[in-house]
């Protein structure tokens, strides 16, 4: 009986429009935020911050981006990493070529560049649909990778095509340590996640979903398909672009275009499908699942597997388990972890009655 909205009446539409209309949810979210914003920086070590949490947050951001495009607007895309690359290299170039600009402006500009590129590659979506579009977005993926490898200007003529993020400064403070980078990432991701949530629950989001669910009737209602799809591509790529910049600046430090290869695009796609297509929360859950599972399995292998199984077999077993779990979760809940979470909440709400 703990989780019930009983007694919480909404007296205005404004209240009903709150992100978390149920009080318990608000508490829960507040706790989560306090945990990740205050507790984690105090207790987590470098390993957790640098190689688990930061990439996790950045991937979540990219996943939110892809979710806007694929989950909300229904345009399946396999070019995510390409747009991340645009963001990463744009941020780098703004940073070194116009050093006067504050870093946060670089990030925003990076996002905008990615958005622009995204919109260009989004143009075919007006005619091409479904898996055809998905494969067509691969054109973006490969083309962007190629451009960045082949035109030295983008990498400031580094002989190997690798760029290395200059030291970061944010509002006059140097962002160097793991905690600082983590907090920067967390801040950006939270603000952008909130903005995404806001967009998807207002008219832009509804237009995206309408186009996703039934584009003809969306058009008949007066939703211009072109504008809607292109904004979806733009916003989505903006998110991916910022994610790419963060990936470079806060996580890897140095990247080559190949860091944003097709495999990364796929990983992000996995994240949203496992997490929940059309769910902001799902983007985080999916990123956690896809990002952490292999690491977890690998750690398990390192601790348990040593000696019991041949190392080769262990490594491949990780793949088998990873693949198996993806299938398992899809069967349990095709709508992803976010849906599972929702069902759990629904059950909790009804508890102790089964239905």
């Amino acid at each position, binding site marked *: 009986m703990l989780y019930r909205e009983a007694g919480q009446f909404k007296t205005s539409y404004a209240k009903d429009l709150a992100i978390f209309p149920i009080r318990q949810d608000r508490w829960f979210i507040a706790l989560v935020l306090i945990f990740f914003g205050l507790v984690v920086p105090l207790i987590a070590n470098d390993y957790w911050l640098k190689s688990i949490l930061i990439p996790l947050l950045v991937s979540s951001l990219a996943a939110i981006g892809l979710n806007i495009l*694929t989950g909300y607007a229904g345009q*399946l895309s396999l070019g995510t990493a390409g747009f991340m690359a645009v963001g990463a290299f744009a941020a780098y170039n703004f940073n070194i070529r116009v050093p006067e600009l504050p870093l946060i402006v670089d990030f925003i500009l990076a996002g905008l560049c990615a958005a622009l590129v995204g919109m260009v590659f989004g143009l*075919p979506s007006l*005619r*091409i*649909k*479904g*898996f*055809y579009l*998905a*494969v*067509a977005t*691969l*054109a973006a993926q*490969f*083309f962007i*990778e*190629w451009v960045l*490898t*082949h*035109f030295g200007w983008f990498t400031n003529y580094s002989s190997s095509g690798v760029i290395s993020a200059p030291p970061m400064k944010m509002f006059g403070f140097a962002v160097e340590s793991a905690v600082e980078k983590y907090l920067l990432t967390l801040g950006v991701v939270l603000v952008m996640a909130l903005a995404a949530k806001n967009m998807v629950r207002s008219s832009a989001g509804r237009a995206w979903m309408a186009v996703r669910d039934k*584009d*003809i*009737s969306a058009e*008949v209602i007066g939703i211009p398909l072109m504008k809607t799809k292109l904004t979806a591509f733009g916003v989505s790529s903006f998110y991916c672009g910022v994610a790419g910049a963060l990936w470079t600046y806060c996580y890897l430090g140095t990247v080559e275009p190949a860091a944003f290869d*097709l495999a990364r695009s*796929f990983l992000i*796609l*996995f994240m949203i*499908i*496992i997490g929940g*297509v059309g769910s902001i929360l799902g983007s985080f859950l999916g990123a956690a699942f896809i990002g952490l599972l292999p690491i977890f399995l690998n750690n398990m292998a390192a601790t348990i597997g040593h000696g019991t199984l041949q190392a*080769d*077999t262990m490594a*491949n*077993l*990780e*793949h*088998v*388990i*990873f*693949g*198996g*779990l*993806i*299938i398992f979760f*899809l*069967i349990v809940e*095709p709508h992803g972890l976010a849906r599972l979470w929702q069902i759990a909440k629904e059950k909790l709400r009804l508890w102790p009655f089964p239905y």
Partner: protein
Amino acid sequence: MTFFFEVLIGGLLAGVMYSLVALGFVMIFKASGVFNFAQGALVLFAALTFVGFMEKGLPFWVAMAVTLAVMMGSAILIERFVLRPLVNQPPITLFMATIGLSFLLEGLGQGLWGSQVRALDIGIEDLPFDVLGMTFSKFDFFAAGCAALLVGALVLFFNKTRVGLALRAVADDHQAALAVGIPLQFVWAVVWAVAGLVALVAGLLWGSRLGVQFSLSLVALKALPVLILGGFTSIAGAIVGGLIIGASEKLAEVFIGPYFGGAIENWFPYMLALAFLLIRPQGLFGEKIIERV
């Protein structure tokens, strides 16, 4: 000019190799509307299994038969444990499931047979011979022959058996197909088994060119533009698409590539296919996407 034709013909022959992989995709898409991401993994798995048995000392044809049996067994398992529980789910979910499957197959294949690189010799010479100043390889013509045979058999299979119609029905609407009594489980098992056979043929041909190793699963990337160009549902499309992609990709790389620093082969076919799609959104031979209110 000779050089142009040499590139052109070489490209066409390369295209046939792409088609071989694309065919597997088409089979499964036709039958279930599933975009089978695991086709590349199937190719790898089939080739690994085959080489594995060869190394165990089985003669060529026996190894072939055993591998085929393994592929069929896998088809049945895949149907039972992956597809059946996901019937009537949206295509993207099934697509994802096949991605899971590809991880599983890659892990399983390499776990069972090891991840070292193996040579595969199917007894067809890969030596060049000259015609009118152009150099070709026998192997390529052999591959083209195999592809032609395979396509012939598949076309017969689809057009002359009841399964063909059932497949197309299933691809349109799982639930309605169930309702009219189409045995979905059987149909899917059959199709996956056929896709397994296609994968085996592709695996042997590609494997004898590249060696049997993980990278075999990446040949799928070559098949995707072929697929969208030809249309997801058309066997003929897979072939024609392959030829077009193969030829234009090579011509572009040789004659346009140098102006841009080369290596345009990765994106060029996709861009080309994209351009085609703008004219025909369902690919050259694909089924028209029906939109009605």
